[in-house]
């Protein structure tokens, strides 16, 4: 039995899409500042990048508040259970049209691999990007104003860490965009993140052979 279930709440969707736009925009302007591309013009790229960065920080503050007040943060607790099965699914099962090994429920939206990757993003990559970005922004040369107290003599370490993080995020986005298509149907994950509803297995029902109902799932 399938059932349309409201899985992504409106704030969650707002947060996700705003974050998506901001990260894409930050990447675009950021790589212009890095000298890899030319689009907005250098001074504009810096200006827009800084505005987007502040917007992102505001969004993060709201998101943290939301995660804690709703208890949604528990979704990201890492687990080793099913992790092997999940890896096997992406490497083998998906080609044989095998079912997802982790059943998605409202209480557990993320599979163990997603949990690990998103937790890594939230606790490692994003904080490092925000911190190195702020230091980059407020770095004012040795003996200038700003982060003088840190007595850091060059913007180089911040720049290098920030750039490395940006490359990792680009790789993440590529993989993320692809993995969206690995849901029940190619677009089911995307639809869920737009409308909030996803067709989930009714937990009380016995697992149904998917092959019968979904032939066209490549």
């Amino acid at each position, binding site marked *: 039995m399938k059932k349309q279930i409201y899985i992504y709440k409106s704030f969650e969707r707002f947060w996700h899409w705003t974050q998506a736009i901001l990260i894409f925009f930050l990447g675009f302007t950021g790589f212009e500042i*890095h000298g890899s591309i*030319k689009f907005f013009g250098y001074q504009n790229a810096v200006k827009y990048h800084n505005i987007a960065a502040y917007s992102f920080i505001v969004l993060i503050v709201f998101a943290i508040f939301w995660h804690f007040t709703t208890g949604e943060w528990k979704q990201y607790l890492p687990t080793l259970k099913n992790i092997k099965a999940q890896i096997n699914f992406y490497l083998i099962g998906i080609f*044989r049209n095998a079912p997802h090994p982790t059943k998605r429920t409202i209480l557990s939206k993320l599979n163990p691999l997603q949990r690990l990757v998103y937790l890594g993003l939230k606790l490692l990559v994003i904080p490092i990007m925000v911190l190195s970005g702020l230091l980059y922004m407020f770095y004012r*040369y040795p003996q200038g104003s700003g982060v003088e107290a840190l007595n850091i003599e060059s913007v180089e370490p911040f*720049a290098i860490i920030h*750039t*490395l993080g940006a490359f990792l995020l680009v*790789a993440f986005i590529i993989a993320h965009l692809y993995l969206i298509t690995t849901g029940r149907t190619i677009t089911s994950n995307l639809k869920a993140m737009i409308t909030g509803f996803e067709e989930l297995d009714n937990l009380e029902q016995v697992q149904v052979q998917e092959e019968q109902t979904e032939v*066209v799932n*490549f």
Partner: protein
Amino acid sequence: MKKIFLILILIGLVIISAVTILTTKNYEPTNQMKLKEKYPKKYSPSVDHSQFTLLQKKFSSPQEVTEACISCHNQRHIEVMQSNHWNWEREEYIEGKGIVYIGKKNAINNYCIGVEGNEQSCAKCHVGYGMTSSMFSYTDAKNIDCLVCHDNTETYVKGNELAGLPDPSLDLNYISQHVGKPERSNCGVCHFFGGGGNNVKHGDLEKSMFEPTKDIDVHMAIEGVNLQCIDCHKTEKHNIAGKMYSLSSMNRNRAYCEDCHTENPHEADILNEHTVKVACQTCHIPIYAKVNATKMHWDWSTAGKLKNGEPYEEDDSEGNHTYLSIKGSFIYGKNLQPDYVWFNGTADHYLLGEEIKDTTKPLKINTLKGSYQDKDSKIIPVKIHTAIQPYDPIKKVLIQPKLFADKKGEGAFWQDFDWRRSAKVGMEEANIPFSGEVSFIKTEMYWPINHMVSTKNLTINCTECHTRENSRLASLTDFYMPARDYSTFVETVGYSIIILTLLGVFTHGTVRIFSSKKRKRLISEKANLYL
């Protein structure tokens, strides 16, 4: 009644809002607006010199004019006699060398090398009369040349090789009756022609600056605020602010753009932040030598060639000398992009008679000090003038040759074209030990570029520096600059991760498509079988 009341209220509101809108125009004038208002105001002198009877009497010598000046301005000569324009030397402190007395009198450069022994000719740009190789009284106030700076008729001119005396045909009465504050023409007559011709030395100071357009210099433009030299080079008691680091060593008495424009003149904070490490000139003087070419290279080693026993000259299509028998070969340049160096306001100098430590590298005649790490340093634009000039390979010192003389036979190179002889005579006059050998060495001189400030729209763009390729600051490698610099490691790792991810996604996707097609085929075959 009620209706009328409402209408009255409505009209009242309209009037009040109209008045408030019209009166909220009292905006704050910007610093630049204030400057533009302040500087074009015409200066009216407090006296008319043409009415003084003292200046009506016939002057038989320029010294008499000076005496007339001093008879009223009876303290000014003391100030002049303390100035560098008079003494041609300053007390300077150079780190590692201590207190030195350096100036035109004893310094060496890589143009005409030095004045020692050549005073008769060089004194054309000294604010005094009667400077010859053998003697000059620095204490005789009568020898002060007041007119060269204060003539407002633009007719005063010093004679060639007259030891600083004016052209004898001048009407000294007319000139002395029309004196005033120095104008661009007074300063320019020497400072635009340093090194033996227009724009030879500085690159940013030349005859087009007498009456420049806005394209040449936004400050001095005659159609703009029309600033005179002393508007920026503020002068108090004949002590003029601002100096050139060809001779100066210490960070003092400088003229700064910030004196008028403040340290935060831009609307955008990000530009103001640059002023911590970047001098105004760096962005606002994108090119120099905009009208006439400046000398970039001087090769003394080719000097002395004669045609039929006579010295000759060769010029390029624009009339710049490319070869002169008396001076050697030259390379000129026009519309040049400056070089950039760190500078903290202090400089080192090669002093006459100093031993050259490393003769394999070009000798820096003056070294502008500074680095990224130094908190007082900023990036400034410079002209780097290179030369090949005579030196003593045994004693390892630069040679001060005797260049100028009235007649042949005195050892002057410009008369006799004999390096050894002119070196010997020159070194003797300078009192420096000389081995008798003459060789040639490459030298460099650094000339900060401060003039020919461009209009706002021609200011350099971010990406002229912040770029991977051909950055204007490519030679300054002691700091990380966004867009120019990157870590090769991060770049390699980053692009590898992206390529691997793309490859992974592509492979995975392809296999998915094929396996799904295969499955579909199998299912339809199965279905056919049952049919």
